[in-house]
């Protein structure tokens, strides 16, 4: 990273597999860098106080509230946003789960919810309902009452473990 002058930084990231470098103010938060500099508006910006979790993105494989991280801190990192979930084979099982189980109504919390769910399933491929609720406790949803979100994650877990078994047999 180079300093053009006092308060400006150059930030290089790999976002959803693509290398990008942008200049920004040192005080720019990662959520705004992703939305305004990288042009990826799937990541939402909500409470600004690290409570609601709609801005969650994956930074080097770990979900992070991007309203509470400076873009400068992400220099050199690999980012995955909601736009990076879909693969050549189609929607990610988590996306399919949210669709099939009606895991969203207004959709505002959904990008952060899905990125956090992805990390949860990577650490714990077969979570109990309690583990799902605990794992997503940093995400607020004001529509669903969480019930269908839990179902969506369970749908994804089953689908992902079925494809794991299929791959290994």
């Amino acid at each position, binding site marked *: *990273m180079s*300093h053009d002058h*006092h*308060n400006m*930084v150059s930030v290089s990231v790999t976002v959803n597999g693509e290398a990008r470098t942008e200049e920004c*103010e*040192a*005080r*720019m*938060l990662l959520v*705004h860098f992703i939305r305004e500099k990288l042009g990826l508006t799937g990541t939402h910006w909500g409470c*600004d*106080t*690290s*409570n609601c*979790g709609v801005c*969650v993105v994956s930074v080097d494989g*770990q*979900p*992070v*509230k991007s309203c*509470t*991280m*400076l873009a*400068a*801190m992400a220099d050199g990192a690999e980012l995955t946003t909601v736009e990076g979930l879909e693969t050549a084979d189609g929607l990610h099982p988590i996306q399919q789960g949210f669709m099939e189980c009606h895991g969203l109504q207004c959709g505002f919390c959904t990008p952060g919810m899905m990125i*956090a769910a992805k990390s949860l399933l990577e650490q714990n491929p077969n979570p109990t309902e309690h583990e799902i609720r*605990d*794992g997503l*406790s*940093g*995400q607020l949803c004001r529509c669903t009452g969480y019930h269908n979100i839990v179902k969506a994650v369970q749908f994804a877990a089953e689908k992902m473990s079925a494809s794991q078994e299929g791959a290994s047999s």
Partner: protein
Amino acid sequence: MQTPAPFGYERATSVDHAIQLLEQLGPEARLVAGGHSLLPMMKIRLAQPEHLIDINPLAAELGSISIDGDSLVIGAMTRHNDLLASPLVGEHFPILQDAERVIADPVVRNRGTVGGSLCQADPAEDLSAALSALHATATIRGSGGSRSVPVRELHVGPYETVVGDAEILTEIRVPIRNGCGSAYEKVERRVGDWAIASAAAVVWMDGGIITDAGIGLAAVGADHFVSPAAEAALRGQQPTEEVIVAAAAAAAAECNPSTDQRGPAEYKRHLAGELTARALRRAVARAQGGQ
């Protein structure tokens, strides 16, 4: 939109480099680790440093958990989730994992650090109470070398520590002694919130007698996050229900909660006593080999 005021951004590549930057940039420079306390304060201008020194590159140098002699050593850059997941921590001091489970939420715990939480010195901070109860010490480094300070003496008031302008907290050392049992109890308004009140209890037992004890309290205005009166009520005693209730009453009497949006002072004082008793019962059970 909430955005911090402009600042100069520096990135430290080693502890020595961080100290050198602090000396060079002066008292208006602040270290930032996980940033989950400092950045929100900067957004609402409660903090307005002229320079931020990012110490996230020191995660490898300061982020390990290990045993050194008869101490558990926790690097200051240890992320909350790493403390929560550490088998070493679980084996020796389950109180720290009790506390971590109720610190913010899993996503915040990916970023927030042990050292950052202690240096933020929020009066409701959970680890300050737990580590004070454990009689842990903090290692603080400056250009002149390192010094060791009991965690009980780290905080001089709300949001204030003894860490100097050009110093950095590098590690926490928790003494490992035989017969230890520990537990943490907290009541919060909703998942991930700061405590309304919380209590940390540590007992060291030998032959059925409590030989030493640590009682920590957060969010209830306890001096240095501890209750010496409750500790004195436990030392040399058998851990009977009577003794536990007396120690809990001493903790409730000694703390100094204030009424705020989290509840009235008398409710918090009641909680301080009740949670001390609950934490003590679990700590004693753990010391005696139970869960």
